[in-house]
C-alpha cells in the first residue's frame, strides 16, 4: 500500500542549513549532510532543500552541499529556490536532486514547466505555490509570498498540471507560522481541481495536525520545517503516532 509521506524542509544559504536542528547529539547543526542523515535515520520519506542564497557566488556552495548529501543519503531529494530556467534544473539534477520545485520562476517564465517536463519527465517537476486568500479568492503570491500576482490559485495549478507538473506543494500563507493546523479548506479546493499528488505545507503545530491532514484523501504528504528542526515534533515519533492511527506510513527501526 502506498504510504502518506512526511517531508522535512531545510533552508540552505551559502551551502549551510540556516536553522539547524535542535538536537544535542549532533555535532554540526548546520551541516546539510549531518541533518540529512539525521532525518533519514528518523524515517523521513523525502527531503526538500530550499536554496535561499541571495547571490550567484553562493550557488556553487549549494551545489557542493547537495552533492555531498546525495552521496550519503539515499531517499528522494527535492530542490527548490532560484529555479528560473532549464539550466537551473540541469545544475541541481546533476548534483543528485530527483525533483525540482519551481515557484516564482514558473510565474515569470510561462514555458518553464512544460519545457522542463518535456526534457526531464513530469515526475521531476514540482509546482510550489504560495497561496493566500484575497477577497474570498485563493491568490498566488510570488517573491517568497510578498507579491500578490492576482492569479487564481486553482486556475494556476490546473494550468501547471496541463503543462506537465508532476506534483504540487501548496503552501498556505494564511496558516503558515500560525501552528494551528494545515489549511484543509485550501488543500481540498486544490485536490478537487487536479489529480496531481499534493504536498501540504504551512500550519503544522503538533502531530495531531498531521492526523487531521491525512483525513483528506487528496493529500499525499505533509511538509514542515521549524517544528521538526526544533524537535517539537519528532519525525520518528510522528510517523509511529500516525501508523498507530491506521494511516499508511513507512516506519524505520532504530
Amino acid at each position, binding site marked *: 500500500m502506498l504510504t502518506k509521506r512526511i517531508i522535512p524542509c531545510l533552508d540552505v544559504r551559502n551551502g549551510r542549513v540556516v536553522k539547524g536542528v535542535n538536537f544535542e547529539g549532533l555535532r554540526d547543526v548546520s551541516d546539510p549532510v549531518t541533518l540529512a542523515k539525521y532525518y*533519514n535515520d528518523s524515517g523521513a520519506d523525502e527531503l526538500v532543500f530550499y536554496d535561499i542564497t541571495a547571490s550567484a557566488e553562493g550557488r556553487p556552495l549549494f551545489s557542493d552541499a547537495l552533492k555531498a548529501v546525495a552521496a550519503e543519503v*539515499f531517499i528522494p531529494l527535492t530542490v527548490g529556490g532560484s529555479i528560473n530556467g532549464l539550466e537551473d534544473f540541469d545544475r541541481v539534477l546533476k*548534483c543528485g536532486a*530527483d525533483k525540482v520545485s519551481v515557484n516564482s520562476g514558473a510565474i515569470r517564465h510561462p514555458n518553464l514547466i512544460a519545457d522542463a517536463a518535456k526534457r526531464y519527465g513530469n515526475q521531476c517537476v514540482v509546482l510550489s505555490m504560495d497561496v493566500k486568500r484575497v477577497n474570498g479568492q485563493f491568490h498566488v503570491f510570488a517573491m517568497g509570498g510578498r507579491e500578490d500576482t492576482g492569479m487564481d490559485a486553482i486556475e494556476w495549478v490546473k494550468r501547471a498540471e496541463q503543462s506537465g507538473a508532476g*506534483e504540487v506543494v501548496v503552501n498556505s500563507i494564511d496558516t503558515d507560522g500560525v501552528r494551528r493546523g494545515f489549511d484543509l479548506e485550501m488543500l481540498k479546493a486544490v485536490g478537487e481541481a487536479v489529480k496531481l499528488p499534493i504536498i501540504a505545507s504551512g500550519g503544522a503545530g503538533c502531530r495531531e495536525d498531521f492526523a487531521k491532514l491525512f483525513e483528506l484523501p487528496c493529500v*499525499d504528504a505533509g511538509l514542515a520545517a521549524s517544528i521538526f528542526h526544533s524537535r517539537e515534533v519528532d519525525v520518528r515519533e510522528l510517523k509511529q503516532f500516525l501508523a498507530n492511527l491506521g494511516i499508511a506510513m513507512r516506519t524505520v527501526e532504530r
Partner: protein
Amino acid sequence: MICVVDYGVGNLYSLTCSLRHIGAQCVVSKEERDLREAERIILPGVGAFGDAADKLRLLKLDGLLKELAAMGKPLMGICLGMQLLFQKSYEYGEHAGLGLIPGVVRPLAPTLEAGAKVPHMGWNSLTFQQPKDGLLRGVREGDYVYYVHSYYATDCQQALVATSVYGSVTVAGAVRNGNVCGTQFHPEKSGEVGLTILSAFAKGDALC
C-alpha cells in the same frame, strides 16, 4: 566491477553513489569493452520507453546486452531499465524491448480506478512472490521501496519476485528470468532496504 550502462537516459549520480556506498566498484560506460569486462551490468533509465530503446539501438547496445545476458552475465534493470528487459511496451505507440524477460509493459491509467493518481509515486510495501530469490536477501516482506512510474510490466507471472499493490493494480516490483533481473522501484532511492537489494545484486547473491 559493475558496469552501469550510460546511454544518455537519466541521472546516474545517485546510483553510482549508492553503489560506492555499499562498497561496490562501478564504472559508468557505453563502451563495448567495459560491458564485456564487467562482472555485472546495471541498466538504469528514466524517461520514455521508445526514446530509450532507440538510444540502445543507436549505440548498438541492444544486441550486446542480449549477447551478454545469453552468456549468463548478471544483468539488472532499474525502473525504465527494467521495463526495457521485457518484450514490448505500449508507451506512446508500440515499441520492442530487449525480450530478455517474457512480459509486456502497459500504462497504469486504464487499469486503475477513476480518480487514482498517475504516476504511482512514493513508498510502497513489498509482497514476496519468490521469497527465496537472492535479490530479497536481507529484505523483509512489508518493507517499503520508492516508486515513480506511469507504466508497469504485465503478463509476467513467471518472473515475479516481489509485487506492490497500488489501488486496484498489482505492480511488478522486482522480476527475474535466470541471470536477468530488475526492479520497477528505485533501490538507489529506497533507503536501507534499497541498499540491501543493490548489495544482494552486487555481491552475486542474486543468482539463484
